[in-house]
């Protein structure tokens, strides 16, 4: 089982990201379960959402306490929420930022993880460029696909197609692909 936790703030599409991830995994022929850290609607408040991916039916209905991957959409949370809590020793970390891992003060954390398991990506820039809005949630999923291989980029793109319409669909798809290539370095 592969467990993902996504951190962000209300209004940044954290829940949508988890849902899309689960749909992409489903398209991959896997079993998936996505759910938010439930709470009343409140813009700007810290929000987390979760996704489990497995090859067999997922019967668990418990919180994810030891995620295999953590996606951080908003690095301002680094100061206020323990976003890395429970991270598996062989886990992945994906952050959305213009800064480097060093500038974010995460060198220590990264050193404890396997090589190339932590990445910073400026997904906001990719979203701004392709989607016209600084909404990085979907773009980050492209990077996630590249970083972890837990889900195929084509499935992410198909999930985007199913979920969105018009320019939002095209923009998100382009942003996801761009963010994917930021991690693969262009190589597919």
């Amino acid at each position, binding site marked *: 089982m592969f467990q993902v936790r996504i951190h962000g703030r209300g209004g940044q599409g954290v829940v949508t990201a*988890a849902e899309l991830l*689960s*749909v992409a995994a*489903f398209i991959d022929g896997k079993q*998936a379960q996505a759910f938010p850290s*439930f709470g009343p609607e409140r813009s700007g408040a810290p929000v987390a959402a979760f996704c489990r991916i497995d090859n067999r039916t997922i019967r*668990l209905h418990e919180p994810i306490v030891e995620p295999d991957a953590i996606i951080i959409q908003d690095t301002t949370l680094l100061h206020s929420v323990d976003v890395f809590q429970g991270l598996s020793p062989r886990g992945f970390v994906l952050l959305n930022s213009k800064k480097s891992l060093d500038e974010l003060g995460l060198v220590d954390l990264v050193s404890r993880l396997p090589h190339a398991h932590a990445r910073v990506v400026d997904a906001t820039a990719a979203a701004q460029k392709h989607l016209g809005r600084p909404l990085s949630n979907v773009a980050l999923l492209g990077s996630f696909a590249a970083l972890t291989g837990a889900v195929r980029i084509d499935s992410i793109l198909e999930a985007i197609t199913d979920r969105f319409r018009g320019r939002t669909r095209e923009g998100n798809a382009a942003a996801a692909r761009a963010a994917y290539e930021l991690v693969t370095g262009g190589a597919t």
Partner: protein
Amino acid sequence: MKQIEGSRAIAETVALCRPEVICAYPITPQTHIVEALSEIVKAGELDPCAFINVESEFAALSVAIGASAAGSRAYTATASQGLLYMTEALYNAAGLGLPIVMTLGTRAIGAPINIWNDHSDAMALRDAGWIQLFAESNQEAADLHVTAFRLAEELSVPVMVCVDGFILTHAFEPVDIATQADVDAFLPPFVPREVLDPADPITIGALVGPEAFTEVKVLAHQRMRRAIDRIPALASEFAARFGRTSGALVRSYRTLEADTVVVALGSVSGTIQEVVDAMRDEGQAVGSVSVVTFRPFPFAAVRQALKHALRVVVIEKNLAIGMRGVLAADVREALGVEAPPVHTVIAGLGGRGITSTSLHRVIGEAHTGTLELEHFLDLDRPTVVRATAKELSR
């Protein structure tokens, strides 16, 4: 098969059941269900159907009562405080024998206000005369609604489908949505037992005095008990028609030769099954039983499922203040005088997550005889001790 939100799956399935009147008042965590249904109706995908935005939960069930009495298949959904607010109407609908189906997104009851999942709302109204079914998964949550309408209309007893708030309602899981043809074949049009009709006028809701009230209630009790026979039969029919299981009185998992059996309602059963597997791998003879039909309480089926258990652990998402556990009490009654020890484990109140780690520990303790009969899972004991001392010192 679709990867969709539990609420959406429920809404789409309810729509397939062709309700003619849907009334809704929003309350977390049921909102996504009624929002989806309003979309479906507004888009003309469910027709004829009136989607009525009412001014309170009390009004919601009242509108459903009127619609059902006039011969329309009626549906509503609520949770927690909303369920309590419609209490009068719940008893009224059951007393009048109206086959209304309602989704209950189970949620804690305040005070203190809490929007997260536990079973206190369902438990609070367990005696209202409604059949109560608990879904284990989103697939079952959706499918149970089809069975619910069929059961309700056959028995003239309203049915509450209990779906764990947030945990199931807001989770994206793979769900097979039935086809219209299959649902139509399983669920024929509603033929009311009695109906408001100017051509054949009747009085519904008369004043019944001491000379007849008892008998009326006994008849209602009998009707509800008939569900004990009908539910397994309908589950078989459902499996034959839809190719998957949905609904049961109870569902046993690896209880064969299990010394310790865990009993629970709803989604936590899935987590418990994973723990059972892990513990079996460790050589511990444990098993679990998921109670799918809570009301009417399936005494015989529970007794049968726990026949060989040396001890029972009941995981309860409800604390009967001043008493203890509700499900455990029903289980003890089912087991009768020869009952083995039945542990009440109060867990998950107000949405506190029930982890496999904690379950593993507590089941292990029961298995080795070190668990108290009444246990609060993952209780912050120091805080309770401190606060208690403060209260008592005043």
